[in-house]
Every structure is written in C-alpha cells, then in structure tokens.
C-alpha cells in the first residue's frame, strides 16, 4: 500500500511557501530579540519570493530563451519569465530594507548595548 502523493505534485512548493510565511510571522511575533525579528522578516519575504517564482513553473516547458529570431515555439512551451523579473526587483527592495534594518540595529546596539526589546525599552528612558 503506497501513499498517493501525486496530489501534491504541483502544490508542494506552495505548501512550503506558506509554511515559511507562517514560520516568518511566528518569529516576528514570538521573539523579543530584534535581530531574530529581522531574520523572521527575511524568511517571510523570501517565502513571498518563492511563491511568486513558483507560479512561473510549467510542466514540460523550457527556459524562455529564443535562440534565433522567429524560432520561438508556442508560449506553452516556455516558462513565464515575468515573475522572475519582478522578483529581481523585489529582492533588491528586500536587500535595501534589510540594510536599513541592520543599520538601525547597529546604531541601537552602539548606543544601548543590546538587541533585546525589553532591555532597549528600559534603557531608552
């Protein structure tokens, strides 16, 4: 008796993405350490990117590169390149956000010597 997993064939990646979303939110809520919150946020954002990229996948499709002009086959034979292009932008945005968050943390740590939210709230009078 074997378990039929074919139902998951197309959807497993979405389950992973939504699992990561939940994990990221959990880290954001449950941790008082600001650095761990940043890690949670990064996991969350990465899950969104995974979700987007997963929507471009197709069975029996190839890379969206046309070797020579006019030689393109039917669109169904190519993966959708748009989500990848969008996610390149989203990754840049994410990196910028991460950079600002880390810069703020560095300044907070230099001044108050802690990453723990409770300590910080005490020390920031």
């Amino acid at each position, binding site marked *: 008796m074997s378990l039929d997993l074919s139902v998951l064939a197309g959807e497993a990646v979405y389950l992973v993405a939504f699992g990561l979303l939940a994990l990221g939110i959990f880290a954001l809520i449950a941790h008082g350490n600001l650095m761990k919150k940043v890690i949670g946020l990064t996991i969350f954002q990465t899950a969104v990117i995974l979700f*987007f990229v997963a929507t471009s996948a197709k069975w029996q499709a190839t890379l969206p590169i046309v070797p020579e002009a006019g030689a393109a086959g039917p669109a169904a034979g190519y993966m959708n390149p748009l989500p990848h292009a969008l996610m390149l932008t989203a990754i840049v945005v994410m990196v910028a956000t991460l950079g600002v968050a880390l810069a703020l943390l560095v300044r907070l740590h230099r001044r108050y010597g802690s990453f723990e939210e409770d300590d910080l709230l005490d020390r920031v009078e």
Partner: protein
Amino acid sequence: MIRHHLPALLVVVPLGTGLALPLLATLSSRLAWPATVAAGAVTAALAVAGVFQVLAGGPVHYAVGGWPPPWGIELVLDPLSAFVAAVVAAVSTCSLAYAGGLDDPALRGRLGGGPALCLLLLAAMMGIVVTGDLFNLFVFLEVAALATYALIGAGGGRALLASFRYVILGSLGASFYLLGVGLLYALTGTLNMADLAARLPAAEASRLVPVAVGLIVMGLGIKMGVAPLHGWLPDAYTYAPPAVVALLAPVATKVAAYALARILFSVLGVSFVLDASVLGGALAWLGAGSILVGGIMALRQDDLRRLLAYSSVSQMGYIVLGIGLATANSLAGAYLHILNHALMKGCLFFVAGAAALRLGGTALADLRRMHRLMPVTTACLVVAALSMVGIPPAGGFFSKWYLLLGAVESGHWVFAGVILAGGLLAVVYMFRVLEHVCLEPRAADDHGGGHARVGRKDASPAVLLPLVVLAVGIVAAGIFNASIVNGLLRLAASVGVG
C-alpha cells in the same frame, strides 16, 4: 508637449532633484533646502496643471519607455489620481518649506541627505498616486517606506526604536500586499490595473480573489495606520524629528488610503466591494473602530505630538469608513477628507514642531501661555483645531458632512453615530490642547518673575509662512468645498461605479 509627459514629470522632477541634491550640496550646503522647496513647488504646479488638464481633456495615459500597456508600466492621471497628486504635492511643498525654515539639526547632514530623502519620499508618493500597475505600486510603496525609515531614524535615541518597529511592520505590510498581488497575477496573468479590471470578472468565482484582496487590504491597512494595525504610528510620529513628521503625518498615510481606493474601485469595482463579498462591511467596521480607538487613545495623551498621532489614527478611520460604505457621497467625503486632513494635520504638526523649538517641549504642560508667546502659531492651531472638530467654515466640517450623508443615505445609522461620536471625541481632545495653550503657567514654575511680561518668541517667518498658508488653506477648502466636490470629486467617486 509637456501635457503628454505630465504623469511622468510628477515623479521625475522630485526624484531627479533628490538624486542630484548631494552633488549640489557639495557646492554649497546652503542650497540644499531652497532647491528642495523649488522641486516641490514645481511638482505641485505640475500636479495642479494636471487637475485642469484632466478636467478639460479627460484622463492622461503615459506608457513608460514607450512600452504599451499591459506589457509596460502605465502612468495614469484621472480625476482621482490628479486630485490626490495635487493635494500631496501642494501640502508636501509647504512641509518642505517648513522643514527648511526649521533647519532641524537632525537633517543637517553634510551631503544634503535629509532634504534628498524628503524629495525621494515625495517622488515615491507621487509614483504611488500616478501608477497604473500593481507591482510598480509595490516598488513605490517600498521606496517611500525606505525614505521614511531613514528620516524617522534620523531623530536618534527613541526614534531609532520607533523606526525599527516601522521597518518590521511596514515591510510586513508591503509583503502582504505583494502576496495579494501575486495571487491576482496567478489568477489573471496581468499586473496592469485596467487590464486586471477587464480580466477579473472571469476569475471572480475563484475563492482566491477574496484572499488576495484581504491580503492587499491588510498590507495597505498597516501603511495607513488604521487601528488595530497602527502599532508603528504613535512612536514614529512622537519621536521622529519635527521636520520629518511635518512631511509624514499630512500625506504619507493618505497615499496608502488612495492606493486602497484605487485598487478597490478601479480594479475590483464598487459591485465587488458592496455585493460580492463582505469587504465593504468589514472596511466600514474597521474604519469605525479606528475612529473610536484613535479618538479614545488621543484623550489619554499628555504630549501634543502623541495626541496628534492618535488623532491621525482616528481621522484615517473616517477615510476608510467612507471607502467601505462606497456610496457617491461617502466616497466624495473620504476623498475630501484626504485634502482636509492633510491640511489640518500638517498645520497641527507644524505647530507642534514650532512649539518644541521655542517652548522646549510638546508636553501639554509645556504649551502653557503659548497664546501670549506665539500668537500667530496659536491662531493657526485654533483654525486647525476647529477643522478637526468640524466647525464650519473650516474644511473638516464638510468632509464629515458628506460622510454622514453617505452613512444616512445607505441606512447605516450605526456608522452615522460613530461619525458624530468621533467628532465629539475630537472636541474633547482638541479643546484639551487649547485649554493648556491658553492657561497661565503654574505658580510654582514661575521662579519669582511671574508677573513680568514675557517677550514674544514666535517662530521665525520662514516657519510661520508655510504654517499660515496651510491655515488659510483649511478655511479655503471649507469655503470652496462645493466646487471641489462637484467639479472634481464627483468624477473621482464615479470611478468603478456601474
């Protein structure tokens, strides 16, 4: 010639000036603020020209880079976006002039970083308003947010923690929005708003549409700062440098509210909001809750800036309530409130910043005898407070009047009651401020020289000018409300109807 490029120029002018500003500042750091204000003024002039352009010749569409929509990114000026763009650009110009006049040490970096970030924020807000593409809107949201994080953090100390909290919540909100957009894209294969509106009816049966819309509403709700998603807002508005709050508080949250209205009515349509889902009701309740929670929290504050921050939560509730009711009058009221609240909250935060500078703090106790020390500032405070409370001819009365009409027309008596209750709460918290402003200091604080006349120390003319302009604007918006509503907002409110 210029009219075809108008939508793009609204973004390009502040963006280009902002990026060139560090170069200019190496020549002379004194040029930074005047150049910033000039860029803001040009943007505002273009935006106002855009309003007349739209009224005369219909919507202006601009295909970025010559790529036709739906493949390329489209910028659109229609009655709604032209109106919001004009409000945002004009009020921001006043804020920039005020920030330059205040010459906040927190923004006095050698390379003009402060003013450059302000312009970046303005460019991103204009981008959010004119874009016709859902993903482009996400990018502009994040550009605006990144500039905001840095500007809030410039306050140092507690502002760093406030900024960090906003980084976490703001990024979470943007990610929710992006996830919702991703679901819509997966369903329809397009990101262009007009194209999506055409394709969505075919996918409307899918259970994913409400999920996507819920995610978008939640994401934009965080950016708008409506209760209970307002966790970042009070600290950010209280501890950020006064010049920054003067730019953020009037317009930044309104732009997210505009984005919500744009997506709900241009993409999904009024029938979806009212009939096909519980969305309209949920939004109306969210707005009503925000009005009450923000108002009640504002009553409990002893610091002017914190009080105003909670009042913003309350006033954003009015806009969300108007959007949720989705009748012609409630939408006109919500859009008019974008203008009125931008004017009055700008005015109030200008006063708070000037008071912090001259009186040494914004705790209500610090404001005593302000009516003697800073008469012009106090006069503007009174005008803005009357608008907040809703006393004609100040503008605030009229937006709430249209909202009330909308609520009564559609038979939502509970929401009509909430609108009135919110006004009553505003009476109490604003008159509490005025009471302190007009009080004499406690005898114990006088150190003996109590009866000596203290000389006036009103803010400098460079600070007072934008303040007075906004105060006059509040009254003008009230007096001309009928022409604004009938000439422009009825058109804006008809987007997506039928």
